[in-house]
């Protein structure tokens, strides 16, 4: 079956201008992402991973090329895309509930159906009792879950995770990425994760895109097929193929410290 991609990145290039000169961040990047896929983007630091994500989110316009989401050209932030920043960015002065409905508030969509949906998300993911708490009263892992629910509440089709777990400590990070993966799968969303953690990239994704160093181009795309029963990213790290992928991608990244 050859479906149409939900996100089509067509020949994107991006140059940043400054008085010192221009910096080419991305060069001729093309990528198709299909409904329900979980795609990880890895690459050496400064390769333009986050730039690519910002372009997909419509936050910045590429120098050339275009991004199509559901066949519509991206020209600014769209409600089809939800974005998760590096840190949870919960607003400290709003309680959990007010944080969760932030997106709905901004998009002026606080309808009864949407409110019920946000309530349901909080209930499903074990946070309903914390509705009236403030973010400072929650643990890092819980805050990250709230941040995900805030993104899901506006019901986007595509989630962009910009190093979304990098601010958490290692143990929490493993647990939260497990939870997030399960939630995203259950809600049947398409996800694009930018990370520099190879294990995280391989264990969470169906597809790992390796970018070259600056200016970033698509060096290789790996379809990830891990034979594991548990179907959680943490469990999948046990899969025999995991190490193979890890070594191959590691070599490809060509890291010199």
């Amino acid at each position, binding site marked *: 079956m050859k479906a149409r991609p939900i996100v089509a990145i067509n020949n994107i290039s991006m140059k940043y201008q400054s008085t010192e000169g221009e910096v080419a961040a991305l060069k001729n990047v093309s990528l198709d992402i299909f409904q329900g896929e979980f795609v990880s983007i890895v690459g050496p630091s400064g390769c333009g991973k986050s730039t690519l994500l910002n372009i997909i*989110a*419509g*936050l910045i316009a590429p120098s050339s090329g275009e991004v199509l989401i559901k066949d519509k050209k991206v020209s*600014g*932030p*769209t*409600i089809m*895309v*939800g*974005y998760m*920043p*590096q*840190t949870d*960015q919960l*607003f*400290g*002065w*709003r*309680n959990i509930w007010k944080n969760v409905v*932030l*997106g709905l*508030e*901004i*998009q002026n969509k606080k309808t009864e159906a949407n409110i019920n949906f946000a309530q349901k998300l909080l209930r499903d993911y074990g946070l309903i009792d914390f509705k009236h708490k*403030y973010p*400072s009263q929650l643990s890092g892992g819980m805050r990250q879950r709230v941040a995900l629910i805030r993104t899901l509440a*506006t019901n986007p089709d595509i989630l*962009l995770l910009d190093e979304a777990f990098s601010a958490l400590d290692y143990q929490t990070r493993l647990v939260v990425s497990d939870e997030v993966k399960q939630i995203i799968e259950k809600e049947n969303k398409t996800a694009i994760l930018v990370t520099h953690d190879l294990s995280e990239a391989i264990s969470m994704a169906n597809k790992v895109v390796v970018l070259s160093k600056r200016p970033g181009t698509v060096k290789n795309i790996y379809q990830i097929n891990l034979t594991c029963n548990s179907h959680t990213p943490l469990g999948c790290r046990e899969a025999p193929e995991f190490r193979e992928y890890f070594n191959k991608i590691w070599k490809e990244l060509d890291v010199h410290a």
Partner: protein
Amino acid sequence: MPENKLEPSISIEHAAYLKSKKLYHWKVLGTQIILLIGFVVLWEIAGRMGWIDPFITSQPSRIWKTLVNLHNEGTLYYHIGITVLETVVGFVSGTIIGTLFAIYLWWSDFAAEVLDPYLVILNALPKIALGPILIVWIGNGSTAIIAMALLISLVVTILGVYSGFSQVDSDMIKLLKTFGATKVQILQKAILPASVPTIISALKINVGLSWVGVIVGEFLVSKAGLGYLIVYGGQVFKLDLVMTSVIILAIAAAVMYKAVVLLEQLFLKWR
């Protein structure tokens, strides 16, 4: 985690720790009170024994007498009221106008850059030097005094609040943008609420500055208020009146500062 707090019994060590904490607290407070009483008593005795000349240094009992006199004449509250009113109007308007100006600078990077050197210079300039100009322009009444108080706190507020706005996490703004937020929404949902602590700390600074502005203003022009009493007392060599006014001033300033601290606690209870 917090479950431990719910345990009804506390360990002996913890009880001892709490007790020593409390003891220390009382020790500090006790010493503070003793210092104050000691100072007042020493002042009084020194005056009576002729170690110091109460005509120049005044004396607690004479201050008290002056206070009672002012109270009986009914002018005490009039003078306090005028000065307090001028100060409150000064720092509230300084904070509001300064914040509005900071919003304008945040809104337009161009304006912020253009105005930057002027603000830096205005900030460095001792605003009190503008006193005579204000009097000529506005006249010698309460309005000129309020203008003085406003002017003295305005530039600090603009710079402080604007830098607070600029320090709001850019990821927070990015998040709002991905939701499709307009600039007004970014201001309203993130910039302003995130800057409440900055605005309140500006308010705290402005309380102090406004007192300076008002007292200087009253020195220059007024016919009423605590600053007027101080200048008048100085001119006719009634040091009792000067000291009394200074003490009232200290108390009023402390009360006003405390009020702002209470306001802060009210606004920042989420922390």
